[in-house]
């Protein structure tokens, strides 16, 4: 194997994810996330060779070519700039593009900024229609099939094959929102009971309102660097050990098994092969829980469990379990500003590995490996990143 340069996560930061009521906008959030990540990295603006921006939709920012305006705002004029878009996976795709740029030798120190506004000023129907166009706009989108309905149909297919009850969906919902209570940047820190969940409105059976993730305002940023291009103080920060990406047939009905996140399985195999590990070595995971059932489908597809319902019941994914899942609260608890989601998941993994995460969520013994799992569509576009503990730990 040729030795690629080691890609270190020198800086990682997230703004709070929520609905802003302070007249700030996506440019403010991107600025604050970038500034915090840069400070952590001990680098300066002039050190940054390239900027990768993840943002899903110009309908929400009202800004085409967002990388150009953010580069100006962030003081990165002269750097190579790229906007990355892959629906819900946009942020993780940007992480991959940035890390590959370092591996290729074309850049030494790279900024990744993910950002999106929730567009909460638009009507619910407009937002639903716009998100409908993130599936096949010409069939699902125009038919008016909602994201919730597609996820619900996929989860029903998963359930038909593997089992699972309403209690399992409730367990995921309560755990993610409970984790969010210890995350001061979370959108939905809640302590709903099983009864509260069962009483919330049915959106698309089996999914009720409380089984769904919210759309949030927010940004996340990373500073990635070739290990040799960092000051000594940051050389031992966590590294990106493996990346994998894959896609699946867009149409749920054209898949061999509409309940299986096949693209995620492929992406995870590629990421693990690159990192030289197997999924059992993963000690914590931030997974793409757009809906409660999607978290279970993700855990299964990633190979973090061969019986996800049994392991959920056994507490395997709880904060004190063998492989804590979504300590941040995940999309359901922490929130989901689309472009920021994947960047934020990788930032969260890096902060947890380095022992710099919110104290109440920080594991007593940080594991060797973590995985950040992001997808777009009904796991149509999958991107998975394996992070490894830094050299000094």
């Amino acid at each position, binding site marked *: 194997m040729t030795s690629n340069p080691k890609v270190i996560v020198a800086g990682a930061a997230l703004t709070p994810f929520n609905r802003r009521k302070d*007249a700030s906008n996506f440019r403010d959030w991107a600025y604050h996330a970038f500034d915090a990540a840069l400070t952590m990295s001990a680098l300066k603006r002039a050190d940054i060779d390239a900027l990768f921006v993840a943002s899903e939709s110009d309908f929400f920012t*009202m800004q085409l070519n967002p990388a150009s305006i953010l580069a100006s705002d962030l003081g990165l004029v002269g750097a190579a700039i790229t906007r990355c878009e892959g629906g819900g996976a946009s942020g993780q795709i940007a992480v991959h593009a940035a890390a590959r740029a370092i591996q290729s030798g074309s850049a030494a120190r790279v900024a990744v900024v993910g950002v999106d506004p929730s567009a909460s000023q638009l009507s619910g129907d407009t937002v*639903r229609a716009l998100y409908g166009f993130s599936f*096949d706009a*010409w*069939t*699902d989108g*125009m*038919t*008016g*099939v*909602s994201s*919730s*309905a*597609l996820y*619900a*149909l996929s989860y*029903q*297919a998963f359930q*038909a094959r593997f089992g699972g009850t309403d209690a399992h969906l409730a367990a995921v919902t309560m755990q993610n929102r409970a984790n969010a209570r210890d995350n001061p940047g979370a959108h939905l820190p809640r302590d709903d009971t099983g009864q509260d969940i069962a009483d919330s*409105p*049915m*959106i*698309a*059976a*089996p*999914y009720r309102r409380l089984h769904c993730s919210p759309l949030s305002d927010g940004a996340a940023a990373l500073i990635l660097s070739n290990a040799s291009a960092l000051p000594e103080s940051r050389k031992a920060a966590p590294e990106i050990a493996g990346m994998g990406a894959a896609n699946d*047939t867009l*149409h*749920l*009905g*054209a898949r061999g098994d*509409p309940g299986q996140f096949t693209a995620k399985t492929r992406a995870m195999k590629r990421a693990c092969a690159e990192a030289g590990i197997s999924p059992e070595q993963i000690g914590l995971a931030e997974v793409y829980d757009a809906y409660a059932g999607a978290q279970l489908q993700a855990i299964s597809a990633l190979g973090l469990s061969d019986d996800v319902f049994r392991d959920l019941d056994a507490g395997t994914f709880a904060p004190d379990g063998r492989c804590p899942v979504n300590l941040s609260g995940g999309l359901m608890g922490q929130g989901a500003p689309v472009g920021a989601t994947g960047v934020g998941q990788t930032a969260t993994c890096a902060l947890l590995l380095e022992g710099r995460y919110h104290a109440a969520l920080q594991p007593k013994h940080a594991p060797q490996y973590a995985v950040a799992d992001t997808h777009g569509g009904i796991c149509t576009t999958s991107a998975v990143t394996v992070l490894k503990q830094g050299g000094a730990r």
Partner: protein
Amino acid sequence: MIDHRLVLDYHLPPGWMAPFVEGLAQGQTIARRCEDCARTSFPPLRSCPCGASAGAWVELDGTAQIIHRTDGQDGSFALVLFDGAATHSVVRLDNLAPDQNIGRLAKSTGPLPQIILGPELESSHP
């Protein structure tokens, strides 16, 4: 706050899917049959999972069996299998009671091509 209102009127060419789109407006189930493996897809896939892209347009009889169904505030939708198709389809359900397992493609009602499944007995052909 900056108030900014946009009204967007699109006129979209249907492209290669034209027979499928025109079929929906007539309540016809126009599917794509692969010339290599004879697998029939609805909605049509331009490239068959077997790898071939040559295909022919065929009309199915429009009846479909419901495999999974979801109801809620977003509406009623289902993953269904149209008779004669090898791929499943996601459809909007219109007037199909929860105990009905079979339906028939209905005409798109508005300007958009919509895949709508209605009651089986009500013929949607003119």
